[in-house]
């Protein structure tokens, strides 16, 4: 493009910008800058009149550069690039200036400085824009398949939606069976229907679905490639049972003499050394737990081997790896309970009769350790006085700051469990606030708070002490009545805080997904794109994006699946615009760019007897590391060339002249 | 008060020199000052540099004798790391060094100093330059000069990497061995160098020594100073450019001192004057007595004549022959006649050429054992060589990582600068009498000066060169009353 013709558009963003500085002044200043043909301000540039204003100017003044001074480019860059496209300009001739997040929102108290800053930022953009050039991207086909990591309700729902849309799904579950936390629940609020009754049919659908392969007892260890063409490395942990032979008859489990605490019962029950996660496990294929198997620990027994009708037992089995080639990845690994023993004052872990909400679920569950009888773990006695503590670790500076978003409703459900099993029981609920926000929750709450012998006390227990008989003694300051209450309870239930699963940190690194202050996955946008991530092709389903109850989780999972389906259905991904580009004339083939490329996207080629660097545009992700390494300046990065960045830097360093 | 004569700057020598002559009211010379008007501070900015970089950094002190600085620094590194190069490496170094000695002397003889004699001191000034020389000796000789120098310099490039700022010096050795194909070239060149050196001796004989007038000029009192002399000698007290002991003889030719360069601080001190950037070396044990010669003044000189004065002879046959001829003709040693410097230079040129031949023929020269690996630096490293213009000492102090903390560079022209001042004022005094300023003054003074082939690039790490001299003569009030142009 010969002559540079720049249009500058300063947005008021209502009062967000306009309330602090005078956009008209900024536009007026911009109009005095070199190459600027037209400069305007408007109340909402992103609105349709705002957009068409720019579009018309582009035609009218045949602009070949557009600068929009408004919010963060991370917000509306695509919007305004769309405007350029519609006006027949290459979208990369757009330069955004962030005068909201980086200026008016943070310098409100020094408006004139903020205005001066806005002018300088615009000036720098004008300097930079002169060096912008058209960028075209390449298209690459996507592989129409997906990996779903995590077989809880979120993963199950997402898998089914994808599979039903004709997409091949690989569902990765680290435990022996899919089902996740929901499978451990007795009932679900507010409808109180049996959790497994609504979950297990879905599990069966998954296991039967032609488009779904389940990799149970497996973990994702590495991810390479990129959106549309990921290579996902999955570790199949040794089960010591050849699942291809196994029929799931369960004789081995029956006959196994080995015993171990049952994870599924949160440590309250016992399982065999060879076991299913739970009765309705999917897949119905057992695994041997070598830590408790007599053969592995003492070198005796081998009963399972003897009794197995199909000779499926294989003590020599080793871990195996498979590499799955997929177009999209859905992360649905859910949450984990906060380690309640860290709330020292409550004595969880020290006092048998202080249990977690999930443990209560197990006690109340028909396939639980007590076959559904709610008793004190210490002596099996029926509790007559039960204390339920809300926000155990949640909304607490010392533990986790955020809300678990289901503790309150769960507590109400737990009142029901207790009153239903032990009608004369007395239930004391210790709360800070009761947040019954979901559909039907308020009604649910009202119903059970008004039951006899159910007391809501606004306050948290001080230190809990254990009496000789195992019951628990503590004081609570009721901030409603202003009284100090001494409580003696047979059982205390902690509605605990939730955190991301331990293995998330490692996983998110291979996925290149950032996290929020709580450690949960960071969505692309908290409102507009809550199930996408900064890594293209990687989607979020359920509680890994933040604590959720079942309805929200399922909704979120379905949305993630829909997003993934959309992404895969499009059929192609585009190369990044910020590609590395080589100036063959200057390149001496010194090869240092090859040494620093994290994606092995650069190779050295012989050309007319010379060595020259070549960039593979599929592999290049546009980080620019090579450009910052190139000793000769032959290697540049689209939209971030040395000249573009330096002209911006020079302008900012020198300030508005 | 009297007049001031300024000759600024002196031409045809590598270095920017300025001479101021003061006359009293009778118009007789009170004093003459040699001013060296710049300083680059290499000694300072060597601080913080890794010692192994010194050979390449210090060679930038002078592009005319980079090899001298490169070699002195490299030898200082051998010393710093207490690691001697293997014999083949030492021989290659010495070979390169003699090639360099040869071409540098050739440059001075034919281009810088020679013209005074070859063309003649009384010849028109415009002719007293390289072009005049070519006219006198014929352009085919001129071509021969150019070709021979080039051949020698190309050999340096082939071995040392570069001729202007060599790179091959490493503590305990050199960077690259000499291969057979290079050696055969070397042998050719070596022979041509010897021929050329002898040819040069012939020219000097025919044009200078056989000319009574010139000989008298050389021996005239105007160009004579009885000072001490310092130079390197080998174990047999013969002239050696690359290595040896430093020997000092007094004005009567008696050995005054003979010491290893490590003891140089006991023997050499430097005096500072406010009117020049160059430091004046003198013998510490005799002391600084101002600008005067004699046994009681610590002033000493270096460079070709000094080397021949401190030595008992030359290290090679043809050179020895020429040396004996010189001593017999002059009749006594030490030779105090400044202009005999040119003579000495020719004799050294012969030795350099013969040395090159000798080393090129040495079977060891192509041996690939060229490095002994250095280990820990021992804190101090001192190296010495005979630069074409005289004793050159590099002295470094480093930390345990071999980073230079202190550097001291003693350069030939610093050693000579006091004696040069003597020569200059003596020449001036003999040629300026009662206000009569002989037109010949200019060149006589220059000749005295030029004989040393002083390199102020070395002495002060200053730029070489300058303009044709002009003499400014001022009256009592300092008004310009006369200007003498070449």
């Amino acid at each position, binding site marked *: 493009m010969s002559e540079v013709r720049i249009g500058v558009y300063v947005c008021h963003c209502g009062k967000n910008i306009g309330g602090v500085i005078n956009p008209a002044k900024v536009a007026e200043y911009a109009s005095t800058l070199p190459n600027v043909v037209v400069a305007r301000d408007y109340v909402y540039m992103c609105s349709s009149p705002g957009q068409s204003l720019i579009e018309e100017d582009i035609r009218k003044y045949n602009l070949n550069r557009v600068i929009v001074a408004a919010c963060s*480019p*991370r917000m509306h860059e695509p919007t305004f690039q769309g405007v350029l496209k519609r006006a027949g300009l290459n979208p990369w001739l757009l330069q955004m200036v962030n005068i909201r997040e980086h200026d008016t929102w*943070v310098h409100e108290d020094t408006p004139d400085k903020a205005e001066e800053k806005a002018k300088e930022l615009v000036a720098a953009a004008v300097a930079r824009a002169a060096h912008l050039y058209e960028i075209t991207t390449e298209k690459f086909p996507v592989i129409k398949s997906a990996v779903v990591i995590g077989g809880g309700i979120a993963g199950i729902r997402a898998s089914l939606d994808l599979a039903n849309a004709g997409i091949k799904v690989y569902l990765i579950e680290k435990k022996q069976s899919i089902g996740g936390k929901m499978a451990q629940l007795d009932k679900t609020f507010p409808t109180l229907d049996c959790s497994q009754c609504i979950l297990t049919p879905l599990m069966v659908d998954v296991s039967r679905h032609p488009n779904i392969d389940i990799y149970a007892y497996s973990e994702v260890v590495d991810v390479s490639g990129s959106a549309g063409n990921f290579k996902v490395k999955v570790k199949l942990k040794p089960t010591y049972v050849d699942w291809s032979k196994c029929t799931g008859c369960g004789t081995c489990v029956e006959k196994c003499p080995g015993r171990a605490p049952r994870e599924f019962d949160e440590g309250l029950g016992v399982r065999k050394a060879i076991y299913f996660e739970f009765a309705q496990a999917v897949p119905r294929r057992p695994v041997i737990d070598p830590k408790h198997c007599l053969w592995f620990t003492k070198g005796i027994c081998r009963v399972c081997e003897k009794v197995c009708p199909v000779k499926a037992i294989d003590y020599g089995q080793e871990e195996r790896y498979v590499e799955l080639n997929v177009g999209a990845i859905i992360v649905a690994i859910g949450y984990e309970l906060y380690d309640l023993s860290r709330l020292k004052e409550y004595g969880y872990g020290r006092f048998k009769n202080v249990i977690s909400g999930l443990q209560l679920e197990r006690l109340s569950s028909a396939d639980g350790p007590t076959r559904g009888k709610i008793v004190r773990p210490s002596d099996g006695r029926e509790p007559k006085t039960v204390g339920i503590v809300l926000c155990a670790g949640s909304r607490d500076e010392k533990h986790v700051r955020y809300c678990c978003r289901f503790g309150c409703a769960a507590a109400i459900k737990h009142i029901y469990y207790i009153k239903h099993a032990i009608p004369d029981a007395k239930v004391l609920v210790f709360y800070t606030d009761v947040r019954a926000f979901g559909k039907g929750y308020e009604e649910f709450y009202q119903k059970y708070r008004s039951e006899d012998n159910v007391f809501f006390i606004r306050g948290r227990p001080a230190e809990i002490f254990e009496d000789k008989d195992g019951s628990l003694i503590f004081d609570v300051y009721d901030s409603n009545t202003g009284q100090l209450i001494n409580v003696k309870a047979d059982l205390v239930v902690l509605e605990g805080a939730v955190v991301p699963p331990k293995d998330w940190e490692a996983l998110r690194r291979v996925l290149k997904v950032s996290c929020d202050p709580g450690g949960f996955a960071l969505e692309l946008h908290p409102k507009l794109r809550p199930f996408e991530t*900064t890594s293209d092709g990687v989607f979020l389903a359920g509680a890994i994006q933040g604590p959720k109850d079942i309805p929200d989780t399922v909704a979120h999972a379905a949305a993630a699946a829909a997003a993934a389906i959309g992404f895969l259905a499009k059929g192609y991904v585009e190369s990044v615009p910020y590609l590395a580009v080589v100036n063959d004339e200057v390149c001496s083939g010194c090869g240092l760019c090859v040494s620093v490329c*994290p994606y092995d996207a650069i190779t050295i080629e012989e050309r007319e007897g010379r060595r020259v660097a070549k960039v593979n545009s599929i592999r290049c992700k546009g*980080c620019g590391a090579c450009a910052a390494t190139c000793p000769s300046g032959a290697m540049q990065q689209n939209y971030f060339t040395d000249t573009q960045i330096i002209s911006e830097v020079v302008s900012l*360093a020198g300030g508005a002249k | 008060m009297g007049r001031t004569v300024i000759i600024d700057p002196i031409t045809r020598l590598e270095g920017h020199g300025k001479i101021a002559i003061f006359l009293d009211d009778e118009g007789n010379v009170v004093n003459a000052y040699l001013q060296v008007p710049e300083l680059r501070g290499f000694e300072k900015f060597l601080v913080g540099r890794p010692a192994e970089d010194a050979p390449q950094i210090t060679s930038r002190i002078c592009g005319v004798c980079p090899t001298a600085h490169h070699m002195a620094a490299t030898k200082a590194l051998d010393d710093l790391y207490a690691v001697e190069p293997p014999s083949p490496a030492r021989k290659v170094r010495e070979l390169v060094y003699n090639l360099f000695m040869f071409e540098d002397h050739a440059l001075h003889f034919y281009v810088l100093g020679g013209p005074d004699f070859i063309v003649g001191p009384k010849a028109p000034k415009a002719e007293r330059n390289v072009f005049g020389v070519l006219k006198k000796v014929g352009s085919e000789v001129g071509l021969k000069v150019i070709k021979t120098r080039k051949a020698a310099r190309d050999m340096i490039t082939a071995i040392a990497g570069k001729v202007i700022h060599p790179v091959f010096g490493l503590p305990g050795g050199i960077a690259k061995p000499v291969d057979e194909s290079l050696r055969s070239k070397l042998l050719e060149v070596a022979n041509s160098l010897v021929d050329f050196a002898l040819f040069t001796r012939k020219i000097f004989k025919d044009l200078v020594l056989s000319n009574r007038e010139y000989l008298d000029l050389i021996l005239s009192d105007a160009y004579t100073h009885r000072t001490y002399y310092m130079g390197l000698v080998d174990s047999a007290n013969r002239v050696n450019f690359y290595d040896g002991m430093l020997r000092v003889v007094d004005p009567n030719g008696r050995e005054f001192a003979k010491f290893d360069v490590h003891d140089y601080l006991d023997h050499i001190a430097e005096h500072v004057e406010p009117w020049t950037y160059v430091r004046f070396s003198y013998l510490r044990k005799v002391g600084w007595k101002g600008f005067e010669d004699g046994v009681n003044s610590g002033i000493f000189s270096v460079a070709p004549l000094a080397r021949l004065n401190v030595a008992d002879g030359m290290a090679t046959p043809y050179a020895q022959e020429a040396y004996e001829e010189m001593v017999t003709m002059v009749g006594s040693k030490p030779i105090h006649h400044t202009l005999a410097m040119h003579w000495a230079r020719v004799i050294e040129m012969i030795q350099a050429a013969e040395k090159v031949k000798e080393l090129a023929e040495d079977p060891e020269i192509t041996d690939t054992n060229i490095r002994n690996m250095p280990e820990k630096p021992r804190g101090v490293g001192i190296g010495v060589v005979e630069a074409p213009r005289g004793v050159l000492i590099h002295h470094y102090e480093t930390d345990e990582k071999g980073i230079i903390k202190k550097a001291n560079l003693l350069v030939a022209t610093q050693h000579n600068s006091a004696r040069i001042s003597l020569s200059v004022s003596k020449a001036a005094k003999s040629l300026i009498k009662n206000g009569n300023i002989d037109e010949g003054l200019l060149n006589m003074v220059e000749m005295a000066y030029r004989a040393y082939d002083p390199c102020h690039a070395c002495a002060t790490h200053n730029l070489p060169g300058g303009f044709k001299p002009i003499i400014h003569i001022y009256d009592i009030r300092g008004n310009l009353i006369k200007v003498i142009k070449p």
Partner: protein
Amino acid sequence: MGDQFEPRIVVFACNWCSYAGIDLAGTSRIRYPHNVRIVKVMCSGRVHPEMVLKALREGADGVLITGCHPGDCHYISGNYKTMRRYLLLKKLLKELGLSDRVWLEWVSASEGDRWAKIASAFVEHIRKLGPLRLKEVMEGE
């Protein structure tokens, strides 16, 4: 000096962590000094020491490079390259008497408050050092 010196500071921010974190400070309305001017790059690994020196040369009183925390780089290892270039640059600048003028800080997408603290600290630090005026000082005799 009469009224107090307002440092001019150029900040390099990577798109995925630091720029997002700076945006977050904005959306959370966390105040910090106006002196900072942000230059966006996709990855801190794109920031060339040349750009840092150029900023100082052209009038910046200080330069602040920001990137993802170690291990968090969106491009696997860009921030490690930045860290190494920074360490070398620091050593060079020390010899040139300028090492106090450049900082490297890690700011994640969730650290709006941390960003604000860093920005304030750096501005104060540079304010104490006073104006740089590299061009005038080095070109004037």
